[in-house]
């Protein structure tokens, strides 16, 4: 076989646009040699998972072609890909919790005679595969009793059981402890030894450097670099990953713009906007929210929070950066009181609120903008007015009280709609009928209704068009200049570097460090997020 022959897996010119207009893959290329571990790295939303889903037949690309072992292939569904020898283990387990491990392995390919499952034969084969890899597993245990690490192994065995020669792993170590992760990698090396090919999506650059043969870097839907992993460094990878800085979030609004009509912006179009001047934070730093040595147990294999201390001052925006699942939800929910910390103290305006219920904290000047506005932020079937009242429904000045005051509520709602430029046909319109941007504005308007001193905002602008993003930030900026302290969680470094005065970086549930505005540097932040190194 020729050394410069075509790669084993070859994806060329893959473009995938979703119905929402988001371009997830834009002329992406990937070449993987047989018998290697090939890593794919990139920021959240860079298009890694989409590209792998195209390879796995879950998405059909708009353009581009896939060649496998020198032959053109076209997958109409994962079943086609499985037949062609591709297996995928997704980030979150796809095992059905109520079935046993062996039943999950067989799922979709149940060997049966006259409708009776042939479990014993199947189990022997699965055990044979497992034995070769040195894995022992209780096949009769229900999936929900297995640890995340064990589930991962079982999923890999399922892929091999189905005859996979190419294994795609999406963030396999995200939920694993370090020892479990190193076990997994020795397993992957064994697989490669026996002729399998491994495609690995990861955020952790150290893993790439230690275990992968080659690495492809993706950014904004494109494959921007392809290197041998022994010829690169974490710093270089991080800097290629994040790319040159783009300024968008605090851009001045172009004159005569009409809100709500602007189409969603592709990431590459973002550079066109100028930066607005920021007002300096208040002179005397007044802490509004303090978190001291907070420890929150993790759930579902997530790291939780390990001894995190932070202080949020009046009039500042404190950004929280980190790859998804580094402890952001745990931090915010513990601050609001939706999660009980194992240890640590939470001070709101100097008062200990660690053991107070959410309602108390919200009354005492904390506001919360949850990560999923449709799931946690709004009651979609409620009207806009009723949604604004949520949490304020005991406050007479907003139309609440033991007996509600519909007239006052309507008037208050009209005022809020006008003040924040929320486009809603009327206060009685159901929140479900508003656009995503207007829904988020309703949530923020509700947060600000009680004149809070601290706001915990998660993924404020996720999935929103640019006009809405700017409107949200101008609303926040007005409140901030009045002394509101904002804890802003985002997965988007551009958003954080523009909006935040300081950025705290979380890595695997602990605080990697806090970067001030002067030191904000995308390479540093990227390295902290992916390796946990202090700057």
């Amino acid at each position, binding site marked *: 076989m020729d050394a410069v022959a075509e790669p084993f897996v070859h994806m060329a010119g893959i473009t995938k646009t979703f119905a929402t207009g988001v371009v997830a893959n834009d002329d992406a290329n990937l070449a993987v040699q047989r018998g290697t571990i090939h890593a794919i790295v990139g920021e959240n939303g860079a298009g890694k998972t989409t590209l792998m889903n195209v390879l796995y037949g879950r998405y059909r690309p708009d353009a581009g072609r896939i060649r496998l072992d020198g032959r053109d292939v076209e997958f109409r569904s994962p079943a086609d890909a499985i037949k062609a020898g591709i297996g995928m283990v997704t980030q979150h387990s796809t095992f059905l919790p109520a079935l046993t491990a062996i039943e999950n392995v067989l799922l979709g390919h149940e060997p049966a005679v006259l409708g009776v499952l042939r479990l014993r034969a199947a189990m022997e084969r699965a055990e044979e595969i497992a034995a070769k890899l040195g894995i022992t597993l209780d096949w009769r245990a229900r999936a929900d009793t297995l640890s995340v690490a064990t589930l991962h192994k079982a999923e890999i065995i399922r892929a091999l059981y189905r005859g996979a020669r190419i294994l795609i792993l999406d963030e396999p170590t995200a939920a694993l402890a370090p020892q479990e992760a190193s076990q997994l990698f020795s397993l992957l090396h064994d697989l490669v030894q026996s002729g399998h090919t491994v495609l690995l999506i990861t955020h952790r650059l150290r893993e790439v450097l230690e275990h992968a043969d080659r690495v492809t870097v993706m950014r904004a839907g494109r494959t921007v670099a392809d290197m041998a992993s022994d010829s690169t460094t974490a710093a270089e990878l991080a800097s290629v990953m994040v790319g040159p800085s783009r300024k968008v979030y605090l851009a001045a609004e172009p004159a005569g713009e009409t809100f709500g009509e602007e189409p969603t912006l592709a990431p590459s179009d973002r550079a066109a906007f100028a930066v607005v001047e920021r007002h300096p934070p208040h002179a005397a730093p007044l802490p509004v929210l303090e978190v001291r040595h907070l420890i929150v147990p993790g759930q579902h294999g997530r790291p939780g929070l390990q001894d995190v201390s932070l202080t949020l001052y009046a009039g500042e925006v404190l950004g929280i950066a980190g790859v998804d699942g580094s402890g952001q939800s745990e931090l915010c929910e513990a601050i609001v009181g939706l999660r009980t910390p194992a240890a640590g103290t939470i001070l709101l305006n100097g008062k200990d609120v660690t053991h107070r219920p959410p*309602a108390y904290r919200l009354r005492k000047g904390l506001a919360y903008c949850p990560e999923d506005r449709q799931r*946690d*932020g709004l009651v*979609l079937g409620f009207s806009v007015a009723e949604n604004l009242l*949520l949490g304020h*429904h005991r406050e007479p000045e907003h139309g*609440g009280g033991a007996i*509600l005051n*519909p007239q006052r509520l309507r008037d208050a709602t009209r005022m809020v709609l006008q003040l924040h430029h929320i486009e809603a046909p009327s206060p009685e319109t159901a929140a*479900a009928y508003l656009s995503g941007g207007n829904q988020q504005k309703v949530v923020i308007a509700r947060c600000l209704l009680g004149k809070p001193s601290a706001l915990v905002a998660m993924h404020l602008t996720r999935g929103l068009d640019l006009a809405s993003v700017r409107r949200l930030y101008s609303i926040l900026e007005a409140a901030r200049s009045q002394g509101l302290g904002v804890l802003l969680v985002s997965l988007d470094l551009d958003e954080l570097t523009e909006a935040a005065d300081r950025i705290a970086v979380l890595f695997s549930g602990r605080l990697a460090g806090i970067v001030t505005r002067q030191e904000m540097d995308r390479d540093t932040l990227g390295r902290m997020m992916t390796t946990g190194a202090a700057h």
Partner: protein
Amino acid sequence: MRATWRRVVIVFGPLFGALAAGWMIIALTGGDANGAMWQLLVGAVGDLPGATHTFLETGRVAVPNELLRSLAKATPLLLSGLAVALALRGGLFNIGAEGQLMVGALTTAWVGYAAAGLPLWIHLPLALAAGACAGAGWAAMAGALKAWRGAHEVIVTIMLNYVAILLTHWLVNGPMRDSTSLAPATPQVLPTARLWAVEGGANFSAGFGIALASAPLVAFLLRRMALGYEIRAVGANPQAARAAGIRVGWITVTVMALSGALAGLAGAVEVLGVHRRFLDAFSPGYGFDSIAVALLGNLNPAGVVFSALLFGALGSGAVHMEAFTGTARQIAGIIQALVILAVGVRAFRIPWRDRKP
């Protein structure tokens, strides 16, 4: 406008469909379908045109007995239907209205016969309140188990039904049995605890007024009170309610208690207005029919009034139909079941969920 039209179709479509199906079943089995349907109607409302005529001519109010019987049958259905509807608005499926009704009825009967020497204006409200409180406590157990132990309220309320039915059965056959009575029953409630009732066997009592007055109260609670707002928020999206500081567990217990209170009240008015005592197994399944009543009423208090009246009329009309045409009264049960089926198929369709926002 479209939404209103839609609601009319949702409510009346199943009803007329079921009536038509009932007509066809009678016709196909060789019965006189037109005659049976007519007698069903007469049995439900009686000689209403005649009574109206009399009223216009002489100014004398003479409500037909058949209509009174329909309203009497609707009374417990209305109260327990409101109970189920209220719980469902809070996101809880209270299957236990039957048990709460039985417990409420027995407690009311006990206060009614045991608390002697009280004036009517204390004794009667006390007896009613006792039934409501017993029902509330019974249901609150299921609410508390759901809120703090995660036990599903459907399972718990079903189980509590058995407990309630067997417990009252034992009490009324044992410690609380009136030894002078042939049937297992408690002693009669004292005159000071009786609700006003029409003489002559129509079973119509002031309990209907209590039931009818409860509907606007429930509507007011849901629409205009902060507690009702919290109940609706928890029912529609418990996660958002929690994130906004509403104590979801506490609301779960409260809404179950309120629901149980209404079901208990249903039992109380049956005891104080109709039977004057707790009769063993007096309920033909009001608590279970009330689930259909609540769903047919679209979980809306006004709608529940409508559907309870409808079910009351069907029940009353069926007896009449059987007596006059020989058509089995179970036909009415079939019609009722078809209405429930038709409603059940659409019960949880929420209009804005049909298309993705």
